[in-house]
């Protein structure tokens, strides 16, 4: 069975009186142990799709089967639990808690686990993950004392601490220079290869997408199956933002 199966997912935002469709019937299957890059130009709806995949948002219509379970109609609390136990999130801007040690940052998701770990167990688990990612000597450093690459590795450690089968990375290299980008991508590949974690990377960078085994392109709310994605260079979106209601709505839903 596929790990993720989307059937005809639609998402429509309401902006005042007008309905703005962002996703217009997306169907997608992602198998276990896959590493998928989700590409698309700004405003194409890739962030909205990402939010729905990550159970941060619910589709207007359509079905989302996760590991054989329909999750698109779960309540907010059930989705929170799902996010806690099944997903790890890595963000473009790291989203680490300021003035908090790396160890505490990584241990943070464990506080929300249903089966509670003791404080000591949580810290040990966090330390193990950090040591694995080569940050064993940075446990007590605050985010401001870490380099960008180190911060992103702390964020990845935080995503890994619950041992999730699935990691979502939203532009994980967007704030990193090319060398650290390479390191982070290599880390993802390693996790995918050795720990068999399914990884979904959202990006607009073709170079990043190339590190994935499979690339899924989204354009104007629809998947372009098999077709070669429109190559978009880094930074191009800032210059040429597609206008129109769809892109506007996508901005509302996410950074696009």
């Amino acid at each position, binding site marked *: 069975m596929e790990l993720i199966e989307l059937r005809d997912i639609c998402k429509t935002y309401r902006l005042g009186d007008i309905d703005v469709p962002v996703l217009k019937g997306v169907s997608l299957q992602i198998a276990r142990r896959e590493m998928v890059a989700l590409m698309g130009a700004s405003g194409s709806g890739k962030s909205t799709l990402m939010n729905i995949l990550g159970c*941060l948002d619910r589709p207007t219509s359509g079905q989302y089967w996760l590991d054989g379970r329909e999750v698109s109609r779960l309540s907010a609390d059930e989705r929170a639990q799902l*996010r806690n136990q099944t997903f790890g999130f890595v963000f473009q801007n790291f989203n680490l808690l300021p*003035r908090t040690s790396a160890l505490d940052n990584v241990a943070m998701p464990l506080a*929300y686990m249903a089966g509670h770990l003791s404080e000591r167990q949580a810290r040990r688990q966090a330390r193990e993950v950090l040591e694995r990612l080569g940050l064993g000597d940075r446990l007590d450093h605050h985010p401001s004392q870490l380099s960008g690459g180190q911060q992103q590795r702390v964020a990845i450690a935080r995503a890994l601490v619950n041992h999730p089968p699935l990691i979502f990375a939203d532009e994980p290299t967007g704030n990193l220079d090319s060398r650290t980008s390479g390191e982070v991508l290599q880390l993802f590949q390693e996790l995918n290869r050795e720990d068999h974690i399914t990884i979904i990377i959202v990006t607009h960078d073709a170079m990043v997408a190339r590190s994935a085994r499979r690339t899924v392109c989204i354009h104007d709310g629809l998947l372009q199956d098999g077709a070669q994605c429109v190559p978009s260079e880094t930074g191009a979106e800032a210059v040429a933002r597609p206008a129109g209601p769809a892109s506007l709505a996508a901005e509302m839903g*996410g950074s696009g």
Partner: protein
Amino acid sequence: MRVYRTARTAMTALGRNPMRALLTTLGIVIGVGAVIAMMEIGTGSSAAIQKSIATMGANVLLVVPGTAASGGVSFGAGSVTTLTPQDGEAILRESPAVRNVAPIVRARTQVVYGNRNWVPQQMIGTTPAFLDIRDWTNLAEGEAFTERDVLNANKVCLIGRTLARELFQGESPIGREIRVKNVSFRVVGVLGAKGANMMGSDQDDILLAPWTTLKYRVTGSTLGSPNQSAAATTGSTVNTLNRLYPSEAPQIYPKPSEAQAANTPLMVRFTNIDQLLAAANSPEEIPAAIRQMTEILRERHRIRDGQPDDFTIRDMTEMTNTLTSTTRLMTNLLLCVAMISLVVGGVGIMNIMLVSVTERTREIGLRMAVGARARDILRQFLVEAVVLCLVGGAAGILLGHGGSRLVELFLRWPVATSLPAIAAAVLVSASVGIIFGFYPAWKASRMDPIDALRYE
């Protein structure tokens, strides 16, 4: 476990911005500190006021014998003689709400010293317990008579300031002999000044003597004629002035013959006293004291159920009411001030918590993304507010307590540590935290994780 972790998370979050946490709590610190200081100073002054009202006799109970009635004509309270000194001893022994009891024998007659004389408003025979009950133990001069004086019916007395002034005109009365109905009393002490009572009569115009002395040596009957010279002439001595100035009261009724008297014997106890004066432990215990005293006296006087009491117990209701209303007014006033300052502190907390929620939008989004439920977020921010308030409350208690100690030290105001106030301060600061922390926490928990994560 869960509570501990939540509290720890809250402490860590607050620790990330200690300056702001400090400023936030400042409102609560000052509020609670002011409340505690005011409560302590207030309780102190209130206790002082209570004490000074108590010296007017607020917790004093007076037992007077009941009324005699003959053929439908009653003679008013105190017209039968049913109280004995033993009643007083029994009350003191058996009633836990009563602090002290003194028997009272009254007389009204002339006091003579040298070429001066005076009729004091009150001439009271009693025991040393009287001074304790009336809170009159500080003497201006000399010392009080003792229980031994009472037992021996020694001819000693204490005099009030007014009487001392009238008889001695400035010279020290200690050790002088004054005459009451031709019985000479040695003055052993002068009472401290007490001034007028609530009714305006001078309380210092008084002579206190052992009740045995007054009863057995001065008055056979309770109320003699105030005219001492007349009383002295009622003897068998021949005095031609007797016919001009008859000193005996005219006899309305014919005197009973000896046979008649023998047929209708009067129920005379060996000794009786005019009144009993008792002090309750505190004004609050007055009702209990009255109940216990009634029970004891009914039993001792062998009054059956359903029969009326042969005595009356009076309390100083007017004074007690004044006392309680004064205290209540003061407490309420302090409470109002307390409430205002705590509400102000609470609004400060809410303000800063709202700012904090806005500032930490991204953190909230992140926590939600990694699996925090709405109620986890609500709890986190609520606990933060409560922790702030409790820490502020604790600091406020210390500040207030220290402040009131300083006031006591430098201004010499009476101060009393008030445990209920401290308990209330803790309780109130926790509830202020919950009440004013709830809205920001609720706002935080209602955030959309997507918007929160993208918040700049």
